[in-house]
């Protein structure tokens, strides 16, 4: 299989990921583009994808599916990736799958073999702005990350006492157990696509691309207007 993965819950990224190769080999990223900026997704995403497809000589006919990171992440950036993935999937008539964005970091932890404390949990956290993090709790089983709690949004100080991977750890290294070397990494399309391919190949139930906002829209229903009465002004 060859899939196009798009992930914009933090940085903007896209990747072509394939599992062509020996049956025991892990999926690999054939081409990818990643930005470091977390606020220019609407500008860079489409040209980045076009360039990547052109460079790889890949057309829609080569693709088996489109995969999108569905967050949690800051709303505007997150939506840019989801709407891009939905549109490409619609026009190319290819299946569309959602992936929880924090899984990308959990998969990096699993493949890199950095969390060798077998059977113990770890956390993945990313920047939720407003002095909070998006986070989830994972455990490794047969080399695969399993989600055990979350995703949630909240202050870093409220996280369980476990090693934390991801940019949310680096931001709050004073209050959490940030894992060195992994305290700045972000969800990226490459890792997300690799895990998506493994899950698809294993026949996992597909997930749709409903965004995980985790926060309400902040809109306040205005209260009833204060009536001016003579009595109230005495």
């Amino acid at each position, binding site marked *: 299989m060859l899939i196009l993965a798009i992930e914009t819950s933090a940085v903007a990224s896209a990747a072509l990921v394939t599992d062509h190769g020996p049956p025991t080999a892990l999926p690999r990223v054939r081409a990818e583009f990643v930005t470091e900026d977390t606020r220019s997704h609407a500008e860079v995403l489409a040209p980045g994808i*076009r360039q990547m497809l052109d460079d790889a000589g890949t057309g829609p006919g080569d693709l088996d599916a489109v995969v999108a990171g569905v967050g949690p992440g800051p709303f505007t950036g997150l939506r840019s990736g989801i709407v891009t993935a939905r549109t490409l999937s619609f026009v190319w008539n290819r299946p569309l799958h959602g992936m929880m964005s924090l899984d990308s970091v959990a998969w990096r932890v699993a493949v890199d073999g950095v969390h060798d404390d077998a059977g113990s949990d770890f956390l993945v956290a990313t920047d939720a702005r407003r002095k909070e993090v998006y986070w989830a709790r994972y455990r490794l089983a047969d080399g695969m990350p399993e989600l055990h709690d979350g995703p949630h949004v909240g202050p870093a100080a409220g996280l369980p006492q476990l090693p934390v991977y991801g940019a949310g750890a680096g931001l709050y290294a004073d209050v959490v157990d940030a894992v060195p070397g992994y305290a700045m990494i972000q969800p990226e399309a490459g890792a997300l696509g690799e895990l998506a391919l493994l899950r698809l190949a294993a026949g996992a139930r597909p997930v749709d691309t409903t965004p995980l*906002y985790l926060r309400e829209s902040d809109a306040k229903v205005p209260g009833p207007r204060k009536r001016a009465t003579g009595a109230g002004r005495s």
Partner: protein
Amino acid sequence: MVSRATASVPPVPEPPEPPVPREPLVLGIESSCDETGVGIVRGTRLLTNTVSSSMDEHVRFGGVIPEIASRAHLDAIIPTLGQALAEAGVELDDVDAIAVTSGPGLAGALMVGVCAAKALAVATGKPLYAVNHLVAHVGVALLDTSLFDGGQLPDNLGALLVSGGHTEILRVRNLADDVELLGATIDDAAGEAYDKVARILSLGYPGGPAIDTIAADGDRTAFRFPRGLSAPKYMKSKADGGHRYDFSFSGLKTAVARCVEQFEARGETVPVADIAASFQEAVVDVITSKTVMACREHGITTLLLGGGVAANSRLRALAAQRCAEAGVELRVPKPSLCTDNGAMVAALGAQVMVSGAAASDLDFAPDTSMPVTSSHL
């Protein structure tokens, strides 16, 4: 024998640019506020105008909540796109170009339409034109065959755009590259003032139709509410630091609130219909008088009325009366083309394409305050 190696090799000819069709088939996407619109036109012919509105979700807040609008755009965009293509009986392959509103508008809302349009361009390889929402409100007039003959805008054209998001007077010489902003609101849009006053009078949302309806039973001369920026000191030209053609509605809203409070403080029944009618008169009076003045002073002989508030009965009546007195032809597109929609974006995109302008680079950013002097990117 001549060595072939030294013979000059004719350069490989560049593949010729495909000629621009005279009447391009253009799909336009609009998401600058609370309407998700996809329209398809062939030149100046309207094929479909599909709109999904999140207005109902804003009712309890009494105004458009940007984040709620953005979430609704994300959910609506693909279904609206699919519906538009089906209604028009058009395949994406047949489309000559994509057009999208790149501004002005709400940042998060614009972003959804812009990303969808860019993805459409990537997926289809079609050129993309990022166009100005306000200029598109003018371009839409080309689609209403009852307005102008021959699918062309008249000379000496002006436009008055009134909605919940904008209040502007434009001078339009050429849709693709020559539009001038003569005046605009310096605070609330007229439609926003309607919404706020409707809330003060407990008339519900959206305020425009609610106030228009109840005002019909009121006396518009009952109260004399302020006409913003009409005092002599503001009537200097823009060049002289004045606000001759500009509007302000925040003082008007405050005056209405005061008026209501005074009735309540005295324990009297608030004369809602009279206040609504008098408020509406203040808005419509200042808008039409300044616009007709701008027409007179700029040689504008045809005025196009656009935006959602163009449906307001008193605005239409007073604009018609004052335009007639000034010898200005007034044109109002049908309501479905006045409110925000994708057909207007497609219509402007087609004009920009026919003008020979280059397609937009894919890396443009949505511009929340895109000026009308930039009709496309």
